[in-house]
């Protein structure tokens, strides 16, 4: 069980503040989406986590250690950063061989990962002849060589067809179910919404949200009743966030209509209206990534 964490992670390229004071945790045993629009600082952050870019301030830790301090990093972290990191004249199998020794993998290990990503038949072709999707798979094969506890993938959906995306979702969920830590970046929430359990959202290099996906999407339930104060007390006692929106109306956050109705019934409060205002994931994501105010919403994880 290895947690990936960032603490006050900051990177300035000259006057450009690419990443500003990022603090988040990527828990093991689930798939975490690292989301933000293009240019939000996702790749810079991932490269800092992997020791490729020196942070201006703060640090990123993998299981409590910096990447550079890992004795055999390929056996702890598997990373796929971009589809261009290949020599076009090299054969797929040879590409994986280069990292194999350090990942503790032998010839059988190479066969296994190539099979795992469905590249066994194309392994002896030169990478230059691969489609973008095949290159993504080859990168994944290399990342999986060391049977790592942590997987970090930068925009893995790029170049994959719908079938490939479904395959990737299945693979990532399986790896997370084994107790591994999986971090997947994307600039499209809908691409990963069905894969991730947890999300870290950044915009303009700053953290906007970090927490379970369901909390990101939590909409509100609007209630009208003749006993608003009575209902508010009961809902608050159950831990729901309640706002009085009028003399007889309430807004409840983090609850479903069923839950509010149940509370009202138990408290013998009569309701005249019970409506789900539910915000969609996409709306919540757009709200977080288009607004310019720096306030970060952080849900406990």
């Amino acid at each position, binding site marked *: 069980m290895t947690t990936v964490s960032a603490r006050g992670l900051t990177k300035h390229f000259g006057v450009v503040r690419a990443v500003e004071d990022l603090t988040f945790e990527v828990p093991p045993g689930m798939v975490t989406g690292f989301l933000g629009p293009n240019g939000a600082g996702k790749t*810079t952050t991932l*490269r800092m986590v*992997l*020791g*490729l*870019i*020196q942070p201006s301030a703060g640090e990123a830790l993998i299981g409590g250690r910096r*990447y*550079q301090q*890992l004795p055999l*990093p*390929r056996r702890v*972290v598997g*990373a796929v*950063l*971009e589809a*261009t*990191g*290949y*020599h*076009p*004249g*090299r*054969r797929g199998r*040879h590409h994986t*061989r*280069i*990292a194999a*020794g*350090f*990942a503790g993998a032998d010839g059988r290990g190479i066969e296994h990962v190539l099979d795992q990503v469905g590249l066994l038949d194309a392994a002896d072709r030169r990478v230059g002849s691969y489609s973008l999707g095949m290159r993504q798979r080859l990168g994944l094969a*290399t990342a999986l060589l060391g049977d790592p506890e942590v997987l970090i993938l930068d925009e893995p959906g790029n170049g994959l067809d719908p079938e490939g995306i479904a395959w990737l979702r299945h693979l990532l969920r399986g790896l997370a179910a084994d107790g591994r830590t999986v971090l997947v970046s994307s600039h499209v929430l809908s691409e990963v919404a069905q894969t991730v359990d947890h999300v870290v959202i950044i915009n303009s290099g700053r953290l906007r949200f970090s927490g379970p996906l369901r909390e990101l999407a939590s909409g509100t339930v609007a209630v009208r009743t003749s006993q608003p104060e009575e209902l508010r007390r009961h809902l608050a006692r159950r831990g729901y966030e309640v706002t009085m929106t009028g003399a007889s109306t309430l807004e409840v956050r983090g609850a479903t209509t069923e839950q509010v109705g149940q509370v009202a019934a138990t408290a013998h409060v009569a309701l005249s209206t019970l409506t789900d205002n539910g915000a969609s994931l996409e709306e919540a994501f757009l709200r977080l990534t288009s607004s310019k105010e720096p306030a970060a919403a952080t849900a406990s994880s």
Partner: protein
Amino acid sequence: MSRLIVTELIKLRTIRSTWMLMGIQQAVVIASLCVLVVVGADLRASTAVRQFLSQAAFMSSLFSLVLGILAVAGEYRHRTITDAYLTTPRRGRVIAAKLLALTGISAILGVLSALTALGVTAVVMNIRDASFDLSSVETWRSVVGVIAGNALYAAIGVSIGALIRNPTGAIAAALLWITLAEGIVASLLRDLSQWLPNASLLALDYSPGRMASDSQLLPQWGGALVLAAYAAAFALLALATSVRRDVT
């Protein structure tokens, strides 16, 4: 470190450009010796074999230099350097492994070039009825020059590739220095010009009065030491900058 060196050798042998470059290297060695014959080199002169070997050494070293440059700059170009540093985050070790692997490979290429040169020389001399004498110590000093020159130029190439990182830019800069810039600097430095890198290579190649300026060259061992010092200085610079630079 041995696993790192093996990895570098796998990288080299799994791309075609390595093999092509090696092939062209031998072809150019042969072609340049043919040019020597055509322009009328005196095959009966006592220094004839040395002259052929030093010509081969110089041409061969250029290709070892390019091989060294591509070993690092090629990785930056294709972004495979990211994978290399992910595998070995202590980047100094990656650069050190490349230095050792390329120096070793190029020493072998130097042996190959010397054999090619001796073969061509033997054939040409046989045709022209000149005596081909391998027993001379001078000949073997020339052979050592070919091997050491290739090895050191490859090491310098690795460092240049690490410093400039763009293969085209790095190769252009290196060749421009050798063909043009050093000559200009040399004319300004006058007597001190013998300490310049390519002048050191020529001294190491042990060439017998191939150029008028050869009289100003260092002795062979001096050329070897100065070139080794350049290789070490470039290597230190390459190690220091590679460790700190962001890989984006």
